[in-house]
């Protein structure tokens, strides 16, 4: 891990994510974040897509976990989302708090997601588990309390999938659908690794390609950093309850590396 390359807020611009640190009196970091619901992030359920919500949860939970282990920092290892409803007015308000800080086993943060435009109705809950690492060149200590404004949104027409130029490819044997994302600096985090939110959006996109849209539950295990690209997400429909349950492999095709493993289902 090298020194951070940038301020790490570029990817959050895609969902208009605004982050701030609040003091709840516990002495433990709490991060609040907001993201608007617009056509860019809208999913098949009418509200914010699971991929965009996972991106919001990853951003808020990751910052919260990082502050909890300073001067170390964190990398996401596992992100789970369970939706309460699929229709949202927005903005969606995320509140991340620390559930556990382990001496060696990293940080667990819980993220509650609510719809401010709909009387704070519950949108869903996420849990982010992160590993704590020591950047060899040190972690620049941020000015507290932290406030991050995403800046002007990218000029985009269409959806996040269009903005990130995610495209369909023929699935390999054993899979029902596959999509690809070319890796540019826009989708990398400050350490040059493909952002957890971009990985989550790929899970959402390949679920859609496998006709498993409107995800209600999703779990992403981040296995190895994706740096080269393209990142290919491959989905297999494992079975169905009311809706399909899918298993997703994410592979860095340029490095022949298994980047993430995900499972998701729809109601």
């Amino acid at each position, binding site marked *: 891990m090298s020194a951070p390359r940038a301020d790490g807020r570029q990817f959050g611009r895609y969902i208009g994510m605004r982050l701030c640190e609040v003091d709840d009196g516990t002495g433990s970091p709490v991060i609040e974040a907001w993201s608007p619901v617009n056509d860019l992030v809208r999913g098949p359920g009418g509200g914010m897509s699971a991929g965009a919500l996972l991106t919001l949860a990853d951003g808020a939970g990751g910052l919260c976990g990082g502050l909890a282990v300073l001067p170390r920092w964190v990398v996401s290892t596992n992100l789970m989302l369970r939706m309460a409803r699929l229709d949202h007015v927005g903005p969606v308000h995320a509140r991340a708090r620390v559930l556990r800080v382990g001496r060696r086993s990293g940080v667990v943060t819980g993220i509650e997601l609510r719809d401010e435009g709909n009387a704070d109705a519950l949108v869903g809950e996420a849990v982010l*588990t992160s590993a704590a690492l020591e950047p060899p060149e040190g972690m620049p200590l941020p000015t507290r309390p932290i406030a991050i404004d995403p800046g002007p949104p990218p000029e985009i027409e269409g959806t996040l999938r269009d903005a990130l130029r995610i495209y369909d490819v023929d699935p390999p044997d054993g899979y029902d659908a596959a999509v690809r994302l070319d890796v540019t600096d826009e989708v990398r985090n400050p350490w040059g690794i493909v952002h957890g939110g971009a990985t989550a959006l790929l899970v959402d996109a390949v679920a859609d390609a496998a006709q498993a849209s409107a995800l209600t539950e999703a779990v992403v295990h981040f296995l190895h950093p994706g740096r080269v690209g393209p990142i290919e997400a491959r989905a297999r429909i*494992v079975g169905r309850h009311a809706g399909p349950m899918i298993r997703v492999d994410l592979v860095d095709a340029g490095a022949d590396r298994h980047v993430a493993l995900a499972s998701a289902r729809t109601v």
Partner: protein
Amino acid sequence: MAEPAAYPPDRHLLRDLRLEAEHRPDGTSSAWIPLPAGARTATGAPVMGAVTTLVDALGGGMALPAAHPNWIATADLTLHLLPGNADAVDVIEARGKVARSGRTTVVLEVELFDVPGDAPRGMATMTFSVIPRRVEAPVWDRDPEAVHRMTLAIPGSGLDDIHLHDALGLRVVDAAAGVVELPIEDYTRNSFGAAQGGAFGALAATAAEAALTEACGAPVEAVDLHLTYLELGKVGPLRTKATVLRASPAEGAARIEIFDTGADDVLTTWATVACVA
């Protein structure tokens, strides 16, 4: 015929599930549990707590050698179950493989199948934190070049005459509020003396089913579970607190927090569970 193992004690959850496991030199493993009436739901489906225990036991047996010479602590477990013909399944087979074995974590993937028939029954993933091996940790010495098969069944063990939830001592305190208690006894302890990871699955699923049956207005069964382990459950009884996330006549989801009431109500586990009618 495989030899019974020395651990756990004669009366134990793993023995009553009659768990059998095989670990192979290629790093893959399989485990099986039969499905007598005591391991099924009212509709005949495999009960979530039994399958969680199957996955947890298989995962522990795989992650330990992957982390050797270090030790492991279960960080999270996700389990998705699929519907199937209850009459066509006698045994559930779990097939596991290591998805990542790193300095800080081991990640496993487990697929579940009906036996006979080989129809998919679900899938699971688990994360283990790699931690320094404590001196008192049990010795895990397995020849990595050999196939190891073991059974935990002994004469008299099984769930033919008792349901898993009764054997565990699960007690529904307030069904509508999803308050359920589980004592921590030798029956449910792991080799560290804490409650088995699978027992947490049984507790969370039972609490969610109780709360969501009320919220959905119809009996529901757990089909989808995510457990994040925060602290060991050492004293007990463990007690749940349920928050309904969504509810319709067809399905619902709930967050279940599990506290160790004998240890200053420490929050041991953060779970979410989805159920279907």
